């Protein structure tokens, strides 16, 4: 089975003011695979993730040089509609951030802002997204209650459901389980494995065991560069670069 590339970074530099946070990153993210970005704190993995859906546009001092190609088109080209881009590329954050509204309204938020008004359609999208996030059974009787009443793990799965509701092609996850307890983490990891069938997933994690468990490909970031990138299995058992081996075996980071 051939693997297609979904989104590709080409010689990507990221500056925060004069600080060069990312150095000539060239990375090919493959379709229907889980790609993990690992590395010590401050290495640029989250910054890189945020370049993929142009969330760094929100940072006033951020400047991008280079390209990120989605279907052959550079997403940083001035003709690109950022709003539509973010519909195609969803993001789940480190700390769950459900809106202070009902569970239903949280999941329906995305479709509503993109123009969907029909109740039947919204009902259906809410249910399928919550099922897709393995949360439906736990909340189906209290869709009208505030999302802030859910536990941390449930809130994070709600945020995943919320992202799924706009039917993205890619899902970016920035340490999605780091704020959760072990049981919720396990549920989220199971979910990610299932989601791979339908979506392309890029996940930043500081937990190497997690990367080894759930990802197909792993990229090791260090000081703004990609030191090594390859299939997860071989990278963990047989790293090519000494720095990768040092990090994986815990000699630093």
């Amino acid at each position, binding site marked *: 089975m051939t693997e297609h590339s979904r989104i590709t970074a080409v010689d990507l530099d990221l500056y925060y003011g004069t600080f060069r946070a990312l150095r000539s990153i060239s990375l090919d993210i493959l379709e229907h695979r889980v790609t993990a970005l690992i590395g010590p704190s401050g290495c640029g993995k989250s910054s890189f993730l945020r370049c993929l859906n142009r969330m760094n546009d929100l940072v006033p001092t951020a400047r991008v040089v280079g390209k990120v190609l989605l279907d052959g088109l550079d997403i940083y080209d001035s003709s690109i509609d950022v709003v539509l881009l973010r519909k195609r590329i969803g993001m789940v954050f480190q700390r769950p951030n459900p*809106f202070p509204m009902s569970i239903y309204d949280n999941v329906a*938020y995305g479709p509503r802002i993109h123009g969907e008004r029909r109740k039947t359609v919204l009902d259906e999208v809410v249910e399928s997204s919550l099922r897709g996030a393995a949360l439906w059974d736990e909340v189906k009787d209290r869709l009208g209650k505030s999302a802030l009443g859910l536990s941390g793990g449930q809130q994070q799965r709600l945020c995943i459901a919320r992202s799924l509701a706009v039917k993205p092609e890619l899902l970016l996850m920035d340490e999605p389980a780091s704020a959760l307890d072990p049981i919720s983490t396990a549920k989220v990891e199971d979910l990610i494995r299932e989601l791979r069938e339908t979506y392309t997933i890029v996940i930043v994690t500081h937990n190497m065991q997690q990367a080894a468990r759930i990802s197909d490909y792993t990229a090791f970031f260090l000081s703004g560069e990609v030191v090594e990138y390859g299939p997860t299995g071989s990278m963990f058992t047989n790293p090519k670069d000494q720095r990768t081996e040092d990090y994986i075996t815990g000699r630093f980071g």
Partner: protein
Amino acid sequence: MSRARLMDRVATMVLWLAGLVIITLLAAFLIRILGPGLPVLSWKFLTTKPYSVTAGGGIGPELFNTFYITGLSLLFSLPIGIGAGVYMAEYAKPGRATNLIRLSVEALASVPSIVLGLFGMILFVNALGWSFSILGGALTLALLNLPVLVRNTEEAMRAVPGTYREGSLALGATRWQTVSKAVFPTALPSVLTGVTLVAGRAIGETAILIYTAGVTVSRRFPDFRPFSAGETLATRIWYVKSEALVPDADAIAAGTGALLLILVLIFNLGLTLPIYWYQRRRMGK
């Protein structure tokens, strides 16, 4: 007992006492005003026109004017004040222009109300030739309340965590959608608290209205023309105690004062309770 424990006990007592003093003052105040004032309030009092020389006049037109002027001034000040507050919090880029706006707002906020009243008189009563009018009073009141609304709304918006904005934008929302559907509804309770404050001030403001809306009422009742003179409950109290010839001035003042107090209390409760319930529902208790 150790020194630290003693201080702890003393501090607790002092603070508790402070609370007690406040409650006592409030109780004394309420008794002093509502005591003589409540008996005066009758249906006749609330609906008759004021008399200039004889006893037995009422405050019907003044009651009407109070609602009219307050409502009109809110109509002007809310959109501009809240809009400017949202702009300052979400759209304004840090820089000289924004600093200038902020400085102007702060400066306007510190102008004494009587000076604003004089300004209103110079502009609306004299220069524009409106003479004493409800509209002039409402516009000057709007000037009084604008800075508070801008400042309050901006703070309320800034208090909303940035994570909500990020979450919304990451779903493909535009900035306006994010502001109107995620950020503003979250800030709404605080914004409404500011509105309650501002409306309360408008209901009770005197100095400004003496010089812009005047101390007389129209002959017709009710009179909806915005250019007619508009004495309100608050200015009536002032007028009746300082210039009036009627023999029952004290009773009228007491009754009007009691009514004003009751109005403000009802208004506050009427807004605060729904805000509280709305907040509880959104936050999931």
